[in-house]
C-alpha cells in the first residue's frame, strides 16, 4: 500500500537533526518501559531462557499485539509503510543461532543491555556493550567474505505472512491477537 503524500510527515522524517532528537525522546520512553517491565535485569532474562520466569515473553507478546494493530491501522490510513528486513537461512538462522548463544551467555540483548547500563549493571557496560561492539566490528570485517558465501544461501521471501498467503492483513492480525491473548492467559493460568 502506498503512503499518502503527507508533506508535513515527509519533511519531519527527512529532518535529520529533529530525527536525532526524536530518537532520543523515543529511546528515553523505551528505556522507561524496559526498566519498568523488569527486562533490563540479567536474572529476568536468564529466568526466561531457563523457562521459570515468563516476564520477557509477556512484555514482548503484548508489545507485538498492540504494535501490530496500531501500525497496520497507520498503514491502512496511508500514514506509514512497512519496513521489512530481508532474510535467508544463511543470515537469519545461522546468525540467529549465534545470537541465541550470546543471549544466554551475556544475559542481555542489544536493547536491554543499554537499559541494564542505566540501572547500574557494570557487567552490562564493561562486558556486554564492549563485547557487542567487538562482535559488530568482527562482522564488519568478515562481511565481504560471508556475503559472497553463506549469507545468500536459502532466501526467505522478504514479505509478510498476509502477502505470502495473498490475504488481507486483518485475516492474520485478528487470529494472531487472539492467539497472543490465549498464550498470555495460559501463562498466567499456569502462574509462570
Amino acid at each position, binding site marked *: 500500500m502506498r503512503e499518502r503524500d503527507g508533506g508535513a510527515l515527509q519533511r519531519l522524517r527527512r529532518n535529520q537533526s529533529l530525527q536525532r532528537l526524536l530518537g532520543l525522546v523515543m529511546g528515553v520512553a523505551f528505556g522507561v518501559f524496559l526498566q519498568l517491565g523488569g527486562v533490563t535485569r540479567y536474572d529476568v532474562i536468564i529466568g526466561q531462557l531457563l523457562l521459570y520466569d515468563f516476564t520477557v515473553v509477556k512484555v514482548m507478546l503484548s508489545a507485538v*499485539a498492540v504494535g501490530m494493530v496500531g*501500525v497496520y491501522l497507520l498503514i491502512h490510513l496511508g500514514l506509514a509503510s512497512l519496513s521489512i528486513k530481508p532474510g535467508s537461512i544463511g543470515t537469519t538462522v545461522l546468525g540467529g543461532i549465534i545470537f541465541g548463544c550470546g543471549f544466554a551467555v551475556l544475559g542481555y540483548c542489544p536493547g536491554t543491555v*543499554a537499559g541494564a547500563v542505566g540501572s547500574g549493571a557494570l*557487567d552490562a557496560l564493561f562486558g556486554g556493550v564492549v563485547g*557487542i561492539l567487538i562482535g559488530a566490528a568482527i562482522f564488519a570485517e568478515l562481511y565481504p567474505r560471508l556475503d559472497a558465501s553463506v549469507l545468500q544461501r536459502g532466501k526467505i521471501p522478504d514479505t509478510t505472512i498476509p502477502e505470502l498467503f495473498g490475504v488481507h492483513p486483518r485475516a492474520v492480525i485478528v487470529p494472531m491477537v487472539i492467539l497472543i491473548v490465549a498464550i498470555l492467559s495460559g501463562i498466567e493460568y499456569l502462574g509462570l
Partner: protein
Amino acid sequence: MDWTPYLAGLGIGILSWFTFLLSGRPLGCSTAYARTSGMIERAIRGDAVLEKSYYRKFVPQIDWEWMLVLGIVIGAFITAIMQGEFALIWVPSTFEAAFGSSSLLRLAVALVGGVLMGLGARWAGGCTSGHGISGTLQLAIASWIAVVVFFVSGIIVAFLLYGVIAP
C-alpha cells in the same frame, strides 16, 4: 496477578506506532552498535575504514537509532533511580548463585557473550527489538523465523550453562 510486564508491553507497542508515524522506521537497536564500532575503528585507523563495504551500508555516524540506544540508558537510569533500584552491580544474583561471586569471571563471561551477541545480531540482521518486536509486529516472515531461532538457541545454551556446566 502482576500487570507491570503488560503495561510495559503496552507502552512499547504504542511507542512503535510513533516510530513508524513520526520517524518512518521500526524500533531497533543493534545497528547503532555497528555504527559505533565503525566510529571507533575510524578514530583508530583513519578514514580508510569508511571504504569497508559494511560501513558503506551502515555509515558510521550518529543517527536516529544511535540516539534511541542512548535514550534507553537515560530512561532506564531515571526509572531505576525513581524505583530505588539503581545499584552498581558486577555479578547478578542468579549468576552468583550458580558460578560464584567473582567479578572477573562474570566480566569474562559477559564479554564472550557480548561478542557472540554483536556478531549474531549483525549476522541475523537484527536483534530482539528489530526482529523480535518490530519485525514480528509487521508479520515479517524472516523476523518470525529469527525470533524463534533466537529463543530456541538461547534456551538450549542457558540450560547447558545452568544445568550442565554450573558446578
